């Protein structure tokens, strides 16, 4: 990332970050910053709400209106903030465990309401901060400290989950595909309604090591080899898709009313 | 001077509304008033209970333990609540539903409340307002003007005339009962 962007968006004195060498969270953070910069948003007009976990520490590093809140609750807190200040651009940073396990209920309901929040899921397939326990996004058959034999639970496709719940913008990219990730976050911010961008990011320390994924470079290679652009994905057979996942803009709808706008109509009705 | 009321019967008879209206009439007359009710399983399908206290002085304890006036509009309510009355209490019963009142020694006035509602207004729905007229007529607990205003303020639009008729019919029942007593 350009020095100028670091200077502009990172809080002085808050670095170095807590992330391990080889962690992909820094790449996702850089993509977020570049997307915000590209959208030309004033820092005063951006809020970044996070939950608890490695990735949720991102809110402390960036110079916006920020809150590192309570495990699982970032979306619910962001919902209240957006209702109070609809003019704010509200981003939510959440890990896979934070937003699909303990915060799963808030995820589906934020999506259902189509409230104008941009959720960036840092999906590293594991609870990293606490040392490598499995999450609802840990691939079935993986090892984790709480699955020493292997996980028997199927994983969510979190973008499909959000889509089914009503999210009007769903997308996925990896830390290998950073221009795409940046582009998708920028589009998600522009989208009026609930948007989710799943950022597939490596946790070499607590997922890679337990699952023999190799070094951070090899984990990025894995992303390159297993991610397929949406356009190509749509042409593939079930057999060809096995073990792979689509990236890109997965869905976008503009036919649903955004929640705060819908509530403004309620206010008009109540005051009529 | 404190006057205590308990309206009891079955959920759906409008007794809680009747209690609220009586309390509001009390306020219109410049009295203090409180109203409370039983909630929950008791209030659904089973017995329903609304209590009102009217007083010139401040009212603190708001539940009624020994009602001066007990209105019973079901046999179950009569069986359950009559024993809370004393000899000085007045028990008003709806003749359509209540056969026996035992265990109180209270004065009983048996009135065709629900039947009157049906005859005067064409619907048993108005029985609570007939009952209110009867209670007020027998006890003189609130002024007729205040009660009429409280009824009309509370009932749904378009039903004012029928409710006023129901209230009058209640007062008439009370008047007849006084004459025959």
């Amino acid at each position: 990332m350009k020095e100028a962007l670091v200077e502009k968006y990172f809080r002085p004195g808050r670095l170095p970050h807590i992330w391990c060498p080889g962690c992909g969270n820094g790449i996702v953070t850089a993509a977020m910053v570049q997307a915000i910069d590209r959208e030309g948003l004033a820092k005063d007009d951006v809020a970044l709400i996070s939950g608890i976990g490695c990735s949720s520490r991102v809110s402390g590093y960036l110079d916006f209106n920020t809150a590192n809140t309570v495990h699982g609750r970032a979306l619910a807190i962001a919902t209240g903030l957006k209702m109070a200040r609809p003019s704010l651009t509200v981003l939510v940073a959440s890990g896979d465990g934070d937003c699909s396990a303990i915060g799963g209920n808030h995820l589906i309901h934020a999506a259902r309401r189509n409230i104008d929040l941009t959720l960036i899921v840092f999906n590293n397939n594991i609870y990293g901060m606490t040392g490598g326990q499995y999450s609802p996004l840990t691939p079935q058959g993986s090892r984790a400290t709480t699955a020493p034999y292997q996980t028997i639970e199927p994983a969510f496709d979190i973008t499909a989950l959000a889509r089914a719940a009503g999210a009007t913008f769903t997308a996925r990219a990896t830390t290998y595909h950073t221009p795409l990730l940046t582009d998708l976050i920028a589009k998600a911010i522009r989208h009026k309604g609930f948007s989710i961008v799943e950022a597939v990011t490596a946790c070499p320390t607590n997922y890679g090591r337990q699952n023999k994924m190799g070094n951070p470079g090899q984990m990025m290679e894995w992303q390159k080899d297993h991610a397929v652009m949406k356009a190509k994905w749509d042409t593939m057979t079930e057999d060809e898709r096995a073990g792979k996942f689509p990236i890109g803009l997965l869905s976008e709808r503009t036919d649903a009313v955004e929640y705060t706008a819908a509530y403004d109509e309620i206010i008009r009705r109540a005051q009529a | 001077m404190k006057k205590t009321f308990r309206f009891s019967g079955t959920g759906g008879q409008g007794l809680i509304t009747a209690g609220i209206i009586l309390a509001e009439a009390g306020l219109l007359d410049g009295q203090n008033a409180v109203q409370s009710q039983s909630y929950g399983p008791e209030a659904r399908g089973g017995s329903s209970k609304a209590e009102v206290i009217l007083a010139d002085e401040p009212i603190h304890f708001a539940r009624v333990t020994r009602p001066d006036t007990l209105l019973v509009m079901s046999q179950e309510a009569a069986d359950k609540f009559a024993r809370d009355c004393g000899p000085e209490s007045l028990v008003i019963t709806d003749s359509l539903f209540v056969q026996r009142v035992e265990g109180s020694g209270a004065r009983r006035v048996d009135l065709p409340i629900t039947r009157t509602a049906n005859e005067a207004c064409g619907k048993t729905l108005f029985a609570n307002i007939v009952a209110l007229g009867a209670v007020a007529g027998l006890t003189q607990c609130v002024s007729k003007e205040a009660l009429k205003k409280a009824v009309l303020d509370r009932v749904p639009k378009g039903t004012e005339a029928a409710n006023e008729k129901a209230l009058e019919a209640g007062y008439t029942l009370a008047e007849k009962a006084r004459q025959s007593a």
Partner: protein
Amino acid sequence: MARVLLMQGNQAVVEGAIAAGVRFYGGYPITPSTEIAEGMAKRLPQVGGKFMQTEDEIAGIAAVTGASLGGVIAMTATSGPGFSLKQEMLGFACSAEIPCLVVDVQRVGPSTGQPTSPSQGDVMQTRWGTHGDHWIIALSPASVPECFDLTRRAVALSETYRCPVILLMDEVVGHLRERIDLPDNYDDLPVVRRKVPAGAPEDYLAYQAKDGSLVAPMAPFGSGYRWHVTGLVHDETGFPKGTPAATVAQQDRLRKKLTDHLDDIVTVEEYRLDDAELAIVAFGGAARTAYDAIDLARAKGIRAGLFRPVTIWPFAEKEIRALAAKVRGILVHELNCGQYVREVERAVQGRVPVLAYSKYDNESATPEDLLAEIENAMKGGAGK
């Protein structure tokens, strides 16, 4: 001008909240507090505010803290089981110093218990419900007019001291309909709002109080003062700092910002207490029984009086000590198995007998019930 109305306690909370400037409500329906949610759903949009029925109890208080960060006065309401669910977020609001109002209309518990029956079983949950050491303000109304007044007071305290405040209600008061003289126009009622920073944004530290009050100004998100909120132990900058010294400094300030202002926060009411030999300590719905029981006792020549804590927490320690110095005995009446009495005993330190009349059978005590307890107390230690 005032309107004379018959109003339910829960509705009076709604009106008090509107008058206090509450403009956001997030919550989940739960008996016996649901009328508050229903009332806010109707009233808030009328005044330009917003109501949300959230997916669960936790989201309710979470959205409230989010709205409060946005500079909007915000509240939620619940009952025992929901209050339990809100406790983690309540701790966050204490630590991050996010003002909000939480109403708990108590039911009989534990668990589903008796949702529609009177109880005061959450007294200790109110004090110690969230995790870790913390300090809290809780107020308990005993009448419908007081529901209106104390809701406004709770909001004012929350905004003044930048902390969550609990309005601890019970079913007796929440569902009671009673006379209230409601102002026609709330615009003339003072609304207390949190301090906001006035200086240059680059000088703003979100947890640094410069006026000696220990309460720092709080900038709404989006108002040009970018700052960071965390539930981690933090210093005056708002950023995590976990040193022993920073930890102690945060804890001490969170405590002292309340305990240095007890004279402002703690209010009690007395009734016929001047020459009393026996003091009844009762609050909320239980106090309503006590007024009448004291009149009955007085009529029998027993000099009893009422000490009613309006502020339940912080505990009226100084006032209870003073009470113990002038009466011969204290009888604590509460609708639970004996919670507040422990605190009274602790403060009295054995100076006079402290007796408990704990009622936990789903029903309010009648004045006659309490009179019997008063007579027993007078026969025992309190009357000698």
